């Protein structure tokens, strides 16, 4: 496709009517200005997001326990999904055990924490919410990186000194 196509397109748009924009399939759906706000990276809500108060390790621990619910023995043995659609408690506990650090016995901290809620089809304008901060605080406290009563919020989280702050850990140095 030629690089000289832009002037042609601009000229065509300038002279054309508003009814037909292209001879193509035209399968796109027009969207209203109000709907664009969620996609507009210049929109204040997208740039800054709603304010989050934060969360504590205790709140994160409570949330985790609420998520890991006991299930009937038969379902647990099969290792499938619980009736609620969540993974069985046994499998979740097993997954957590596998991720425990061999040195500290705690869940290893993540290398970074991002806004997990900003996915298409969900609320793209959402910033890390209190639940995310609480779970983050719980993991950090389990690894003795913050105190049991420290609250994580947009101001305190960036100040936590992560153990791998000077670079990522090479998992298989002998393979490089």
């Amino acid at each position, binding site marked *: 496709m030629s690089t000289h196509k832009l002037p042609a397109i601009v000229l065509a748009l300038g002279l054309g009517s508003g009814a037909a924009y292209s001879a*193509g399939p035209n399968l*796109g759906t027009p969207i209203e200005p109000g709907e664009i706000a969620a996609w507009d990276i210049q929109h204040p809500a997208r740039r800054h997001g709603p304010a989050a108060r934060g969360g504590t390790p205790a709140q994160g621990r409570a949330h985790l326990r609420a998520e890991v619910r006991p299930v009937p023995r038969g379902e647990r043995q099969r290792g499938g999904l619980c009736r609620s659609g969540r993974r069985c408690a046994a499998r979740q506990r097993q997954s957590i055990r596998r991720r425990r650090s061999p040195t500290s016995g705690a869940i290893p901290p993540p290398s970074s924490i*991002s*806004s997990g809620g900003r996915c298409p089809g969900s609320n793209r304008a959402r910033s890390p919410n209190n639940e995310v901060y609480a779970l983050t605080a719980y993991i950090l406290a389990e690894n003795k990186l913050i105190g049991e009563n420290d609250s994580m919020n947009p101001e305190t989280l960036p100040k936590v000194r992560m153990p791998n702050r000077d670079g*990522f850990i090479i998992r298989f140095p002998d393979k490089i």
Partner: protein
Amino acid sequence: MHSGTPDIDPDKHRLVIHGLVKRPLAFTLDALARYPMVSRMTFVECGGTSAPMFSKEPIQASVQALHGLASCAEWTGVPLSTLLEETGIDPKAKWLVAEGADSLALSRSVPLTKALDDAMVALYQNGERLMPGNGYPMRLAPPRLGRQHERQIPAPVEVGRSPGHELLRDPHLFTDPAGRKGVPVLLPAGGQSFITHPSPGLALKGPGYYEISGIAYSGNGRFQDHGFGRRRAELGAGGPAGAGALQGFYPVPHALAVGRRSCGPAKPRLGRAGNVQPTRAQFVAQRGETQKVPNVLGFPNQHYNSLTSWRSTAKGR
């Protein structure tokens, strides 16, 4: 893929084009699959390709660890120009900001002329639907752009007058063509090449000649001369330098090219557009180098594309 593999419902995913356009449009995956498609063989590289080479001292690592953030595939999808024609473009528009739907929602700016030239919204890779770890259900594939990150899984595409700022900015700042810092942009990748054999892990077993092979690619088209074998791959025994011809390179523009030579003179790679791969000294003078040896998995100063070479010990390692 940044921040793991996104779990995206293809029925809910939308490609939204808005900004300086006549009418903003949203495209579903089903709608895009009905458009006429094109296929192109082209490379994809990370904005941090060969970044460890910024090291002041040679890094003892393999070719995969140093240069492995590049690949090549046949991409099939809808030309972005087709979709932009349907939205209509404001004459003031010069840039396009593409934002990914991965969890970090990184965004990069692409010159609009480039977007209208050969960029596509890819749905297939090597004849199959994109894999979740490689951009499913759709990804922006602007061939030959590599100075910064390739974007995956575009969700909104905003057309504007200037390069846009991303929501969650990288810790590294970039300078756009107008000299403004802090604007991540995609620009045509310069010539890049590296020798894959011999290289660490593929030691020379004894004196004699060895074929030198490697990979080269450029955002500016085909290579006229790969120049592989600029160092004589010999141990002990003497021999004619410069014998051996370039063989077997892949004559597809913007694709990875495989070159082989027994040996040859030092020569920078020359693209069809006349672009010459910079020497180490030229590159360091412009982009600098690290003060200490960086982590091989780090990205000091991002993309690196000067001439590189291996040094062999007397034992061929």
